[in-house]
């Protein structure tokens, strides 16, 4: 493949970090993908409209020109097809990264991912190093099929890893780690964070990865632990500010970053320190991953709990479209404030 030569010209919009400029979460992932494409000729991209168009969110803009159509592969509208094809390519030693145009459509490939991809190593058909990524989450008036958080649907499948970053630094380090990982990784990107100016940051110019499976303390505290991830990290941080100002509460925020495998140690350690746990996720309530977290804490830190574990989540419904409905449906900063306050006063 005439890649090496092609990939010389790195377009301006991928050179922000090189120039010491701050990048958005979306730009950070784009840089990460670009660097992995340059580093390893086995890495390639597949998905709908990712070539000439650069993807629905322009994540892969400029990549077709740089890497050619053998490594930036536009596909028919076939989630089963290109997900399975990625697995086949991975069998042959490639490292495919496939894009779901919206992560909601990952449901179409549920059988291929859970039955074929996730079990391959166990069945003796070898590892399937591939990444499935796509825009996820709500707060954008996308309605029931352009706002989903799919983690709970796959959290239960042995053989998979699940990543859902909250910051530009983590997003770049984790997408690079995901591409290099020997297991299939579901990489969820919150579209409401993609271009948020507040999330812009200057990233290290040298190659780095963020380890999969390790949580991050987003904020240190001693009175209460909030375990959360993705967009909720930022709403929780807002809430923590309020709680500090208005209640003098010191809130610790654990950003899981990786959901599977769950960084149980980080959670347990923080709970043993604060003795109070609030779990916050944007996903719906029943069957959301808060349950597993609560179960693990009960198994490992029951004696340390001074109050019942509580959760702030979306309500148990499909995701409605109209602003008042979506705003009601989704967790808001004030919800976290109120729930944390209740816990602190317990």
């Amino acid at each position, binding site marked *: 493949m005439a890649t090496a030569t092609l990939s010389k010209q790195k377009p301006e919009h991928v050179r922000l970090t090189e120039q010491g400029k701050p990048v958005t979460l979306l730009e950070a992932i784009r840089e990460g993908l670009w660097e992995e494409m340059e580093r390893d000729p086995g890495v390639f991209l597949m998905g709908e409209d990712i070539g000439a168009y650069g993807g629905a969110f322009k994540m892969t803009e400029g990549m077709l020109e740089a890497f050619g159509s053998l490594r930036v592969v536009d596909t*028919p*509208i076939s989630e*089963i097809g290109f997900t399975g094809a990625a697995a086949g390519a991975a069998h042959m030693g490639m490292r495919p990264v496939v894009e779901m145009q919206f992560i909601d459509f990952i449901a179409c490939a549920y059988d291929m991912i859970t039955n074929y991809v996730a079990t391959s190593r166990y069945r003796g058909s070898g590892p399937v190093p591939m990444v499935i990524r796509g825009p996820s989450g709500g707060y954008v008036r996308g309605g029931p099929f352009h706002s989903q958080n799919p983690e709970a649907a796959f959290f239960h499948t042995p053989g998979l890893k699940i990543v859902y970053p909250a910051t530009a630094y983590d997003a770049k380090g984790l997408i690079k780690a995901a591409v290099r990982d020997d297991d299939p990784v579901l990489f969820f990107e919150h579209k409401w964070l993609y271009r948020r100016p507040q999330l812009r940051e200057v990233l290290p110019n040298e190659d780095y990865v963020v380890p999969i499976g390790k949580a991050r303390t987003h904020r240190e505290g001693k009175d209460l632990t909030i375990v959360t991830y993705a967009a909720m990290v930022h709403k929780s941080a807002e809430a923590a500010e309020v709680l500090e100002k208005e209640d003098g509460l010191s809130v610790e925020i654990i950003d899981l970053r990786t959901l599977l495998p769950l960084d149980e140690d980080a959670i347990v350690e923080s709970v043993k320190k604060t003795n109070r746990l609030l779990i916050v996720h944007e996903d719906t309530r029943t069957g959301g991953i808060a349950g597993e977290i609560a179960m693990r804490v009960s198994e490992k830190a029951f004696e340390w709990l001074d109050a019942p574990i509580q959760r702030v989540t979306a309500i148990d419904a499909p995701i*409605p*479209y109209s602003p008042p409905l979506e705003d009601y*449906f989704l967790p808001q900063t004030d*919800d976290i404030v109120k729930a944390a306050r209740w816990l602190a006063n317990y």
Partner: protein
Amino acid sequence: MANRTPAKRTARAAIPHGLTREQLLDMYRLVRLTRSLEEKLELLFKQSKVIGGLFRSLGQEGESVASAYALRRRSDGTGDVLSPLIRNLGSMLTIGATPAEVVRQYMAKGDSPARGKELNIHFTDYQRGFIGQISPLGDLVPVMAGVTLTFKQRGEDRVGMVYIGDGATSTGAFHEGINFAAVKQCPLVVIVENNGWAYSTPTRMQTAAKSFADKAAGYGAAADRVDGNDMLAVYGAAKAAVDRARSGGGVTLIQVDTYRRKGHAQHDSQGYMDPAEIDRWATANDPVDRYVAALTGSGWATQKELAEIDARIDRELDETIAEAEGSPLPDEHEARTDVVSGGPVPGHWYRLDPPDPRMA
């Protein structure tokens, strides 16, 4: 492409397909209504009064209206049933959806058919016979296979029509649905709308098939292919397929060739499309222009009649929109209703005063 209806100069040519002059004018009203409504929606979009994306069918309105017009359209739940795509506003209006409903949908109003829970033309009325699609493409093909299976089970002589884009023919749902309908001899008409593009993906990157009509044989379905911007030709093909379905002839797949002149949605700058190509379709092959030429050229209608229709549509739409703008967004607690039978789902315990987790 099938050749276009020649604009005859004769006084009054015979009307094809057993249509009446009133029906011809009715079809004109519908296709004009479709275009005008979309144009006004685009204005509302630019005024940020539309919530979410706006999807235009500019250049495709003809086949939407003409195909749906071939159905038995009733409002009492005894007629035929269709399931449209996001670009089939014309089909929706033809089967009986109203501009007032559509405008309210796009504005996410509480009194919109989906009560603010679903967007754009994703809404349903079994009485008038339309079933809103969902975003995952292809899913309505199996669903319409089941709708028409039930027509058979009940011995009803009703017919179903489902639309599928050139892009969505690549989905497993399309394949499983049409194969199921064909093997069960369901009274279903499958309209493959080949508008040249699936978002930014040209047809040649979607499939290596020479035509979409070529897919029919693989299902043992009847096949047809028609110039999608020739409304009378589309009506003729659709009518033949609907009649076949109604008389027990099973599934027909009709490929309608048309062109998506706008982007996938408003945000799409169409950089991947050739402006000259768009222009060619706009100037030489616009379905409304061609239909007007056919109507007037064949002496079936006068410019004056058509102008009056246009004026009325314009007036009525402005009223409709003014009204719609006045109606309220839904009450937030509507988010909890209609998830399952038997009452709303629980709300947020921390929003109670005082907060109470036992209420979760």
